[in-house]
């Protein structure tokens, strides 16, 4: 244990030195979201500028801090001053910022917020955590994301990293499981099975070796919670795996991660290396006699491989097809041995519970759904990004308080990805927890929240999700393989204005067959988007079928675009984006739209700032 104390001491010193650095420190958000917004170019330009100036400045990569819509982030920490965050930085702005803060001085450009303690205003700048998007969040699993260098184990250790593991090793397996029971933590992969019970099953199961698998096959469209966590704080996940493995008696672990997450994979590999070098992984971890090793297994991008038995098959080298349970993986999993599979977020949360206690964690959330949950807040919402809130927070709080509401009137929110459902505005005050969502016909899922406004056609949304599940079905069982396909065909028919009222009946009937008949969760939940939209937005289906009209003006076959002459200012924006030259007209005069040439791509409609393009639902006689 003396080793660990030495490491902790050194880590704290390093971290303190960084916090109170005698020279400027620049942090750049280099998660996938940041990179996608141009953080790479920012990094290069900063590096170039610093090289030119020859001034000693530390440049540090961090992960995603949350509000993705404000990416790329660049933080500047001057000696004697806290970290100030700047948003939407591009290469040009980065140079200006450096100039302003480091070289010519003046610090005239206003930061978004500061990361210094105590919270409150510093130099007239609000704390980052007091921003509307962050004020109502509770960051437990995301506590290090965007703060530390995810490629430096010392940063993690300095922020109490591996303290959970140390506590766990002292507690023993039974103690850990008890602590988890107290915490009330439920699986964050979607189904919400109590974690302590899963571990207990596996611990009691006969067989050796036992395996621990981390399911990082995040495949829901619009979901990126796991990716961000791994990119921002890979050590949290790895520490969680160590604790889990110790509790269930596993000596080997796999991380099944999508090959489409190259950055997450790279950071995991670096983190694993560093942990091995510091004695946190391998033989006799922290002199406790506990051995554990981790291997990455890259998935080939099949959504169904997120299903645990398909995931196991995939690791074994077979086609990713689920099998029936029982036997459950806890009894007979990978290579027929007892296996526990936990989601990234579940594992990432565990070090915090072991560090601060189950009771502390249970202090958040509701009676049956305890703790916090991360969500990828996306869609037609003003403030998109990765958030973490206590369970029991209402949809309204998330969408309007944190997300800032929608531009056009709110219509629906999809929770739980393709397996979840679309809830209408009547459910805005629904507290988010496992039971409430299920009772409304949706699911918690892994945490995707897709917000839709008046411009979203609910039939089209249902079709989108069904097509996704239909294509991602493994093809093993009949209802899922053929049934989802039939549903897509019917939805296609409806969105083309060729539906009949019996189709709704057939859809409901098929949904029942697929739900009751399918082998795995993918199939069983696949009809949810259709069932919920039928339940809450039936009028839209009827509009498509009876009136041959798409109320949101989305379904291409039911829409015709025209220019509203009274509103058109002749700004030419639509002329520029029209790919077929269907819109013409001189500047400052109302434009013309030639319906013959129009391919209904909706580009003009999206760019018009004066609501001068109308997407009229046309009626097919």
């Amino acid at each position, binding site marked *: 244990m003396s080793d660990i104390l030495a490491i902790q001491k050194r880590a704290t010193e390093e971290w303190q030195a960084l916090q109170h650095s005698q020279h400027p420190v620049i942090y750049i958000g280099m998660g996938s979201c940041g990179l996608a917004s141009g953080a790479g170019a920012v990094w290069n330009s900063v590096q170039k500028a610093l090289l030119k100036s020859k001034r000693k400045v530390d440049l540090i990569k961090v992960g995603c801090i949350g509000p993705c819509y404000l990416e790329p982030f660049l933080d500047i920490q001057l000696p004697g001053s806290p970290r100030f965050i700047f948003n939407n930085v591009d290469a040009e702005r980065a140079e200006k910022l450096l100039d302003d803060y480091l070289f010519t001085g003046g610090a005239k450009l206003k930061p978004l917020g500061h990361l210094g303690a105590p919270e409150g205003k510093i130099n007239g700048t609000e704390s980052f955590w007091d921003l509307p998007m962050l004020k109502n969040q509770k960051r437990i699993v995301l506590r290090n994301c965007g703060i530390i260098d995810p490629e430096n184990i010392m940063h993690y250790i300095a922020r109490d990293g591996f303290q959970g593991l140390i506590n766990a090793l002292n507690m023993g397996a039974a103690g850990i499981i008890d602590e988890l029971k107290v915490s009330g933590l439920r699986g964050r992969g979607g189904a919400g099975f109590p974690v302590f019970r899963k571990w207990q099953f596996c611990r009691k199961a006969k067989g050796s070796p036992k395996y621990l698998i981390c399911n990082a096959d995040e495949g829901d469209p619009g979901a990126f919670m796991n990716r961000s966590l791994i990119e921002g704080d890979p050590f949290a996940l790895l520490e969680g795996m160590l604790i889990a493995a110790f509790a269930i008696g596993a000596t080997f672990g796999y991380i099944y991660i999508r090959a489409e997450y190259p950055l997450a994979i790279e950071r995991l590999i670096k983190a694993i290396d560093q942990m091995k070098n510091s004695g946190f992984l391998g033989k006799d971890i922290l002199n406790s006699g506990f051995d554990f090793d981790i291997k990455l297994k890259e998935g080939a991008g*099949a959504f*169904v491989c997120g299903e645990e038995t398909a995931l196991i098959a995939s690791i074994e080298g077979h*086609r990713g*097809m689920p*099998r*029936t349970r*029982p036997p459950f993986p806890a009894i007979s999993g990978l290579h027929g041995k007892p296996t526990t599979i936990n989601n990234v977020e579940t594992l990432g949360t565990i070090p915090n519970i072991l560090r601060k206690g189950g009771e502390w964690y249970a202090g958040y959330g509701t009676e049956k759904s305890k703790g916090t949950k991360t969500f990828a807040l996306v869609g037609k919402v003003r403030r998109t990004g990765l958030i973490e809130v206590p369970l029991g927070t209402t949809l309204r709080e998330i969408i309007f308080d944190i997300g800032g509401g929608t531009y056009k009137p709110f219509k629906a929110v999809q929770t739980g990805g393709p397996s979840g459902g679309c809830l209408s505005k009547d459910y805005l005050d629904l507290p988010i927890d496992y039971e409430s969502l299920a009772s409304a016909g949706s699911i918690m899922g892994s945490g995707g929240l897709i917000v839709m406004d008046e411009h979203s056609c609910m039939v089209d949304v249902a079709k989108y999700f069904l097509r996704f599940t*239909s*294509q*991602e*079905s*493994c*093809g*093993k*069982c*009949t*209802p899922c*393989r*053929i*049934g*989802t*396909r*039939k549903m897509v*065909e019917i939805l296609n028919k409806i969105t083309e204005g060729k539906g009949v009222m019996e189709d709704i009946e*057939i859809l409901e*009937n*098929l949904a029942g*067959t697929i739900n*009751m*008949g*399918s*082998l795995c969760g993918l199939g069983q939940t696949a009809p949810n988007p259709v069932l919920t939209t039928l339940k809450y937005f039936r009028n839209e289906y009827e509009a498509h079928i009876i009136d041959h009209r798409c109320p949101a003006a989305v379904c291409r076959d039911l829409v015709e675009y025209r220019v509203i002459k009274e509103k058109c200012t002749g700004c030419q924006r639509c002329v520029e984006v029209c790919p077929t030259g269907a819109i013409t007209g001189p500047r400052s005069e109302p434009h013309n739209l030639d319906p013959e040439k129009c391919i209904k791509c909706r580009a003009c409609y999206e760019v018009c700032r004066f609501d001068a393009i109308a997407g009229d639902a046309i009626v097919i006689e």
Partner: protein
Amino acid sequence: MTEVIEKKKIKKISITIDGKSMMVSEGITILEAARKAGIYIPTLCYLDNLPHYGGCRLCMVEIKNSKGYQTACTTPVCQGMEIITKTADLQILRRDILELILSEHTFTCLICKDKNDCSEYMHSTRKVGVTTGCNFCTRNGDCELQDLVEYLELKDVRFPIAYRGLEPVKDNPFYELDYNLCVLCGRCVRICNEERNSGVLAFVQRGNATLVGTAFLESQKDAGCEYCGACVDVCPTGSIAEKMGSWVGCPDNSTITTCVLCPVGCKMNVNSKGNRIINVGPEPGKRTAPLQLCVRGKFVPGDIVHHPDRINKPLLKKENRWVEIAWDDAIRYIARNLEKYKGSQFGMIGSAQDSIENNYILQKFTRKVMKSNNVDLLFSYPGKNLLKKIHEYYNAFPPIGLNKIESADTIFVIGSQAYSSHPIVENRIRKAYKNGKQVVVAHTHNNRTADFSNLFVNFNPGKEYSFLSMLMAYISVVLKKRLPDSVRELLENSNQRKLERIGGFRMEEIEQFARTLVKSRKINIIVGEWILRSPESENSFNLLINISRLLGGLENNRVLFLLDEGNRYGGTLVGIHPDYFAGFARVHNRVDHNKWAGLWNTKLPHQKGLSANEMIKNISNDGIRALFVMGDMPPHKNLADLEFMVQQNMFLSQTSDYANIVLPLCSFTETEGHIIDVERSLKKFTPVIKPPGLARPAWATMQEIAEGMRQDGFGYKRANMILSEIKSVIDLSFSTAEFESKRLMSVNRTEHRKSNKFPVQVIIEPNHFHYMGNLLSALIPDMKAIREESVLFVSEKLLRDLTARDGEKVRLITTFGKKVFKVKIMSGLNGKAAYIKPTWDDLPLFSDGLSPERCVVNAKIEDVD
């Protein structure tokens, strides 16, 4: 480490199915329990004896106090479980699922309201040479969808037909794969991978585009198809359908019999209609537990039995032309002529695929009537006493059953290509490997069995004995045994280096092999033809027995000899051998001789008999002058010097050209008889159809000839009377006896030597693809397509020395002659090795007798000018 053998006592538990209480074994599935109780639950993907799948979802049942429905085929029963198999809701759910299945399978024939009244001639849509009615599906009457539609009362399909519009896959010679009919039940994929371990069929694509296919869209052949036909047997819809018998309709008769093409003696079901075999495969409606066969058992019988070239009347050669004559005239003609050749100028060659009854009569006829000991089976082993040694060993240590191959923790396979000679044995080896048993293989080249092994050692062709000697020496060293001088000599450094050079193996490999074997608690040794078909086979036998003894005892470890052809052991046992009477009684032992002379009430010849090979080599005025051939054999040029030759066969062959008369012969599906299989049990084959024309079994023919020669002792009315006679003199129940074997044989051998003049070692595959000497590739074009016979396979290295490229022609030269062959690259061959599957026409290049002396010949390969 000692393993406690757990004898799990299977607990009985009580459950209720549809209100019926029953006691069932714990751990079985609901479906199994229901079937035992005679309760029907519809299924489509279920296969007996294979791991659970649960894909079709038709077997869903309701379990009290359980959420939703569960699949009966995957859910194990538990104490007190209350199961309901048929409710209105369940039927609707199942019907909806079936409707979905049918939406992707042409369903009009299944839901047509006239389907039950459809007469043969109604609505014929095909202008073809058969009357089809509207029943134009190859599986009509044996389609599991028909049963399901009936049971679930499906009347209509609400969805348009989603026809996949795929081209049927026709690259398999024996069956077609029309994936438009596929319902993705996965039976074919599972049986191919989990039961046969061929790994050819797989699911490709995903979602609704999922199909059955091969990896990377390879052809069936390139994907490694072994043509076992298991996928055809299990397909419920006709998506995979045999070409043979496709349009014949449903069989009216199914007969269980035994395959005689190899000594595994598989149980096979032959479906027939009238006097015609439709196919070999499961009885209609019993596709979930097909009998496992190989390409020969599955696809050969129908093709040879109904071959258009089959002869059904005696044919007499007159002025170089075949003339049909009456049976009685033929017998009289033969009897008259044979009278002239009594004594050692007469020879008889029988077939190792013929029954023990027939072979017993052949040798009885030869010895009693013709007064000759020149009687042998075609392609008999070079080691004349080998079978007797095996017989004595088996008497003390009966062969392991094929299903018990994996009872050992290590399976040691040497000199075997069971995947071609005994595919079912290969299957058991693969299963053992998959189930975690250790498989160690030694062979002349890296072959398919090696793919399923934990350890593989290559020895040079013809160096089996060196390999075994060295292996034994190392085993002794590892076990720290006191080494006899001969062994110590082997381990001398100079000898080791020399052996490495000529043997083609490294000492480290042998040592590792030895250590692996020494560590094993129980070893099953499987010995293939590269050992059996060698002049050193008897020495190798001794070595194997001694190795087995060293490694934990003869009782503990067992040796299984992969004898070839259906009845080689049985035939030899009943006396079709120049040196032995039935029961391996010695011809030249006075007591045995007198005993048999007494039994047959005659004087028996004393002259030494010749083997089949020797007979052919001794055809001359003062040697063999008359020959009787049962079945066919390679057309050896010496046959031209015979004065008189009789052949009884199913076809006229090149050999028939030398015969004076040819009699029509029954196949094993037209007569009855017994063989003794590789497990040494007596197996019966029964007539499936009537023989064509005047075709008769061998015993009936020989009996008539004997009577024509006014000989008594042949008055059998049925084949079983012969069996009784055999049983009265030898023990076919094989009660155990003591086994004596010499400890260590001296290293005295005439092993195969390399030659500088002929630097290439051509490995010759013993060709088992024949039926009673009739080469299958010559009769069945499909067989020719899959076999690649008469092609010279060489290592890449060898081809580099030539200007000819892969697929071009080269000349092969041996001491016996030369011939031009197509050359192809084969992986797994050592640098100076080549490989060939010879046809009968190629054999003169490898031997001056009927068959090569061993499975390797020295040769030279040249470019064709």
